[in-house]
């Protein structure tokens, strides 16, 4: 990194890192409770299976780096192979790896870079172009929380205790 150039602030990244660490601690607790023998279970024929949903929550953290480093993500150029954990440990390790990579990527993001445009496209077709901060906030962080919320229902339906998240659950953290 170049420390001799004009000092750039990274207050936005500092806030995002703090939040990501907090949320990831809770996410990890959920993933640790997803048993491998339930990876194929789903609550409805149109639902994602539990293993896929949990892996999706883990892999989404990996979207941070392309959001920070690149101006776009082009599905046409991607060779996406979903990670398929065989065990709960592999699932949790996948989360840890992606969270660490996300935090490293965030450390390099200056405040001004967050207001650059970022596009999601499939070759010629552009799905949307929005500032990087909106991508990180909505498509990465809130999107993770959304699917993690779904996963918490999957746990409940399988009688797996739901950890306290933003407040107590019916199983843990009663006030």
């Amino acid at each position, binding site marked *: 990194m170049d420390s001799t150039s004009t000092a750039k602030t990274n207050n936005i990244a500092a806030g995002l890192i703090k939040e990501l660490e907090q949320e990831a601690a809770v996410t990890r607790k959920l993933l640790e409770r997803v048993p491998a023998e339930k990876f194929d279970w789903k609550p409805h024929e149109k639902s994602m299976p539990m293993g896929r949903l949990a892996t999706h929550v883990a892999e989404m953290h990996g979207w941070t780096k392309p959001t920070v480093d690149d101006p776009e993500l082009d599905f046409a150029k991607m060779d996406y192979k979903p990670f398929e954990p065989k065990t709960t440990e592999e699932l949790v390790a996948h989360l840890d790896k992606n969270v660490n990579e996300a935090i490293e990527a965030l450390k390099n993001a200056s405040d001004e870079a967050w207001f650059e445009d970022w596009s999601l496209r499939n070759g010629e077709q552009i799905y949307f172009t929005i500032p990087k901060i909106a991508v990180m906030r909505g*498509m990465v*962080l*809130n*999107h993770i*929380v959304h699917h993690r919320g*779904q996963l918490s229902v999957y746990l409940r339906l399988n009688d797996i205790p739901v950890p306290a998240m*933003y407040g107590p659950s019916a199983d843990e953290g009663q006030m």
Partner: protein
Amino acid sequence: MAIKDGFVKEVEQESVATRKMLERIPAESFDWKPHERSMTMKGLAGLVADMFGWFSFMIDQDELDFAKGYERPDPKTTQDLVNFFDKKLAAGMESLKNADDAVFSENWKLRNGDTIYWEASKLDVVRQTINHMVHHRGQLSVFLRLKDIPVPAIYGPSADEGQM
């Protein structure tokens, strides 16, 4: 850019999918729950509808004290639920739009009389409330699916809508 500007934009965006989901919940399903330890559909949807209204007491006041009572939503119809959401959202937005940067450094407490549950800066409290809403709305999307109510596209396509 003021701190509130980012929040206002994000809350506006997130409200679109939230409202769409609430509009689809039939009153006949209000008492349904997927598990004995789950919230009912009405309880969960009412909470989701209520949460953006929390910005009012989080920004304009310095605490919420459960010991002083808190009125929970009790909609009778889908329209009641949506109207309640619209009213809460409008009130929360009003407070957000009037918040200057200094307000977000102030301290806020959630308490029940002498017991303090949570104490944080108003910045963290507002931030966590958005995440908290997204969390429960995610749960609500599973409730919809289980009742064969089409799940709207939220951050991307669902199995029912918005396929790319």
